[in-house]
Every structure is written in C-alpha cells, then in structure tokens.
C-alpha cells in the first residue's frame, strides 16, 4: 500500500525568511493526521508544498506515492484539497460548483451527478444546492468545500484550518462529518489546526510545529503521557507570589502559563494536593484559586516550546468561534 504522505527534510524559504525549516513527515493509510501549531508556524506553507501549490526550496515529498515536484499532475489527481483562503465563487450555486469541479477533475458526467447528489445529502446541503454560495453561512460553505474536495474520491484529503472562523455548532458538525468520512470510507486526512481541542478530538496522530520545525510528533495520548505530571495551577495575591513559588518548587518543576498564574507539574499527582495546601498554609499564603488538570496537548506544546498555545495570540486556541480567518503563514 502506498504511503499517503511522506516528506523528508522539507524546507521553504521566502527571501531571507525560512517558513519551513526541515520537516519530516509520514502519514499512514487511513489515518487522521493533525498538524498543530500557532499562526505563522509553517503549517499552511507545508500544506501548500504537499499539495503542489508551492515548490520546496529543499527536501522531497511524496503524496499518494507521487513526487510533488516531478509528478505534480498525478498528485493533484489523487488528492482533495480544501484550503483556508481559497474562496468559493459567491455567484455560483452549490450544484454548479460541483459540476465545474467534476469537469476540472475529468469525471464522467453520470458518475459526477450521482456522486454530487450523494455528497450534498451527506453534508446536508441538498436543499441549498440551487442557491448561490454568496447566500450560504460560513458553516455551509465549509461543508460545500468538503463536498467539493471529496467529489473525485481522493486518496488523501488535505484540510487547511477547516474550522477556523466557524461557530461552535458548525465546528462540531464538521468534526462529525470528518469522523464519519474517515471511519466509513477510510479516507486519509491531513489537517492543519491551531485548535488543541480539534487535534485532540480528531487525530490519531499529531505533529506539533513551531518556527517551521516539528517539535513533537505522536499519538495525542502518548504525548500527554510523556509530559507525565498533571498541571497544578494556583492564583495568589501578587505580594505573596514569590513565597508561593518557593513553596511550590518543592512539589514539581514550574511550567509556563499566563500572567498571574503559578503553574507546576505536580510530580506526586492528585495525592499530593493536600500536602501542597498544607505547605502553602504554613507559609501563610492565601490561595485565591486552585486547579489540577490532567496533561493536555497544551502542556505538550508548552514543554516543547516553553510557550502556551492557548492564549498565545488573542486567545485563538481557546475560542475558535472568536477568531476570524487570518492570512496564511
């Protein structure tokens, strides 16, 4: 069986800027693979190289068994692509766009019609198929985009930030759709996201990218297990922060967090909580807030980069609905 995506030492420079600085990737057949990272980490640039829209400055990549540079035409035929900022013509109807897509991919007419009807049904757009896309909601557009990218039954589906800018309900719907697609049809999915929850919910395997390099890669649960200790977060009055920090240092290593919050990896786990409270009390520290969280992908990210993804840029990771689409990296 061909390997859906395989990249070795992929580099892309724009002038002096190195957007992607040596990425190695391997996605297995039938897998949902998530590429997780903040804005400007190199996610979109990597996807654009894998989908033949951009040539690598160095390195090689094979998608669906074909080289993205020397066999670009075969790659394009084998993949489905839904790009973050590739607009859908607002003047066309959903059905017209599907018809155009069928011609662009050289599908026989009868098969294209049958498949369009099936896909429209699946993404819940049958009733809206005759309406112009300009009148669609954001969620409907993404679902149409998904249907378009699946029309020719691609071996690998590339989704660049599929839920950026969507409201929570639309986001959950799209997740369901992707899960079904993967479970029932075995389509390999390569998606990029800046949302921790999205990667955690959907992907069998993730790669965390930061500054153009992959800093962690693996199954979400294994990555979280590698972080080990749960994160203990406390908030105290500013005046007592130093005392509290000294006390906490006895129970585990400090972890980065947002301002005003002291965070450590609690080595002893939940069983140590009472000891922590007692120690803080003995040092006369007044606890204003306290919580213990199992390791999350954000902890994985923080451990790898020394920064939090959550709240990194305008709280992007925390509230997907809150951030409108931003320019691709």
């Amino acid at each position, binding site marked *: 069986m061909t390997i859906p995506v395989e990249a070795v030492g992929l580099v892309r420079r724009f002038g002096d800027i190195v957007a992607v600085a040596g990425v190695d990737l391997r996605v297995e057949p039938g897998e949902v693979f998530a590429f997780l990272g903040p804005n400007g980490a190199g996610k979109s640039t990597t996807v654009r190289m894998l989908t033949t*829209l951009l040539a690598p400055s160095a390195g090689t990549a094979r998608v669906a068994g074909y080289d993205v540079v020397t066999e670009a035409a075969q790659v394009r035929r084998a993949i489905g692509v839904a790009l973050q900022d*590739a607009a859908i013509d607002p*003047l066309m109807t959903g059905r017209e766009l599907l018809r155009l897509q069928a011609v662009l991919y*050289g599908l026989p007419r009868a098969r294209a019609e049958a498949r369009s009807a099936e896909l429209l049904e699946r993404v819940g757009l049958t009733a809206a198929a005759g309406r112009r896309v300009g009148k669609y909601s954001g969620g409907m557009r993404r679902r149409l985009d998904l249907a378009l990218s699946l029309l020719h039954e691609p071996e690998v589906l590339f989704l660049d930030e599929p839920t950026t800018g969507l409201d929570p309900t639309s986001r959950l719907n799209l997740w369901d759709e992707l899960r079904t697609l993967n479970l029932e049809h075995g389509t390999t999915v390569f998606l990029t996201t800046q949302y921790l929850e999205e990667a955690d919910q959907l992907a069998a395997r993730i790669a965390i990218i930061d500054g153009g390099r992959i800093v962690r890669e693996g199954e979400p649960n294994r990555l979280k297990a590698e972080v080990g200790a749960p994160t203990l977060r406390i908030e105290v009055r500013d005046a007592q922060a130093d005392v509290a920090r000294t006390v906490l240092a006895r129970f585990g290593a400090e972890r980065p967090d947002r301002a005003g919050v002291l965070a450590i990896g609690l080595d002893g786990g939940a069983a140590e909580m009472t000891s922590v409270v007692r120690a803080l009390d003995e040092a006369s520290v007044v606890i204003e807030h306290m919580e213990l969280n199992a390791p999350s992908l954000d902890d994985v990210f923080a451990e790898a980069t020394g920064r939090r993804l959550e709240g990194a840029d305008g709280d992007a990771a925390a509230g997907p609905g809150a951030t409108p689409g931003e320019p691709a990296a």
Partner: protein
Amino acid sequence: MAVAAPAAGQARAGRERQIHLPAQALALAGRSVRSTARQPEMWLPSMIFPLLIAAVNNSAMAKAVLLPGFPPVDSVLQFLLPATVVQGVMFGAVSGGSDLALDIENGFFERLIASPVARPAILVGRLAGGAVLGACQAVIFVVIFRVFGAHVVGGPPAVLVLMAMAVMVTLMVGGITAAVGIRTGSQESVDAAFPLIFILLFMSSAFFPAELMDGWFRWMAEHNPLSWMIDAARRLVLFGFDWSDAAVAVVVPGLISVLTIALAVRQMRKRLERAR
C-alpha cells in the same frame, strides 16, 4: 526502468490533460458568462454608456455630416455603429481581465491550480467567455441602431463581420487586461488600465473621419490600427459588403490579439513558475 516509470506516468497525465482541455475551457467559459450575467452592474454600463455616447454624438454631429469630406450617410448613427460596437465590447473585455484578477485575489485561482485542470483552460475559458458576450453585444447594438433607422448596407455578411470583429476586439483587450490581472493579481490595477484603452479609441477615427482632422491628431488617428479596423467596418456598414474590408476589420484586431494573448500566456507561465 525505475527511472522510466515516472516519465511514462507524466506523459500519460499530460495526454489526459489535453483530452479534457476543451471541456474544461468550455466549463470555465460558461462560468465566466454566467457570472457576468448575474452581475447586471458589470454588463449594464457596457451596454448603456456606448449607447449614450452614440446618442450624444448623434445630436452633436447632426450638421457635421454636411461637411465636405464626411462620408455620405443616412444618419450619424450609421456612421457611429462600428465605433459603438467596439467601445461596448471593450468595456466587457476589461471586466474579463478584472474578474481574472479577482479570482487571484480571493483564491479561486488557487483552487483551480490545485486541481488537475489543464493550465491553458484557465485563460482560454476566460477569454472565450468574453468573446461570446462580445459577439452577442454586437448583434444587440446592430438591432438597436436598426430600430433608430441606421441600417447596415452590407447586410447579414457585414453583421457577421461586425460580430467577428467584436470577438477579436474582446480577445485583443481581454488579452492585455488578463496579462495585467495575472501579473498584478489586483483588480484595481486592471481597472486603472481601463482609461488608457479608451484613450486609444478616442485617438482614432472611431467617432470622426480622419479626413476632417488636422495636425498631429490626424497623424495619430491615421496611424492607429483601431482606425484601420473601424474604417473598414464602417465601409461595410455604409457602402456594402467587400471582402478586403471584411478582412481588414477582422485581421487587424486578430493580429493584435495574438500579441496580447501571448503576453497573457507569458504572465500566466511566470505566475505558475513563481510558486516553483
């Protein structure tokens, strides 16, 4: 053998693309025509403004037809028909290039490039869509002018030539605006090029016989290929069908369009290369 396999695959993919090219170009031309039809604000000006200008000139030049040197005409409208057709299709052709720039701006172009579409189909589809609209517009103008008493002495063959000329002018202007659109990827840049094209038309014998001009302006008009084309078309309208006039009316814009389309193709290649 291992080396030959990808090459064979590529040749096969290349052949497949050629097979699909006409269908893809047709589908994209259809999209272009449909999107123009769905935006009356795009095509209405190209219908109304040339007709308004013709109406104004019709009154302004009412007595000019009596000047010695002015060709014998039934009405000024008859004299203005070819120029009005050219002006109208020029409007439409500019918006074709402008739409192409918009596709690049909003990412639809990228959607096309990510698909296995034969690359020439993108440009051919856009230009062909404009050409179809141009031919229709020529017929509509002929009919409207006929209603107001300006008939085409050359009859149906001359009308066919006017349509062919309209198609060539669309390709000529469409080629240059597409080149600007593809190069800049900015709709505003294309729209900024628009007045330049019209100045070329006004510096020709389109709206007034060159014989009645003087000095440098006359020299410009006489050396302007648009004058050669329009004068030939006008002879078909005023005096009757003539093969050599028909040839000039179509071949002049045809030759220029070869140049402008070559320019657009070059810009397209460059844009596709830039990603490489």
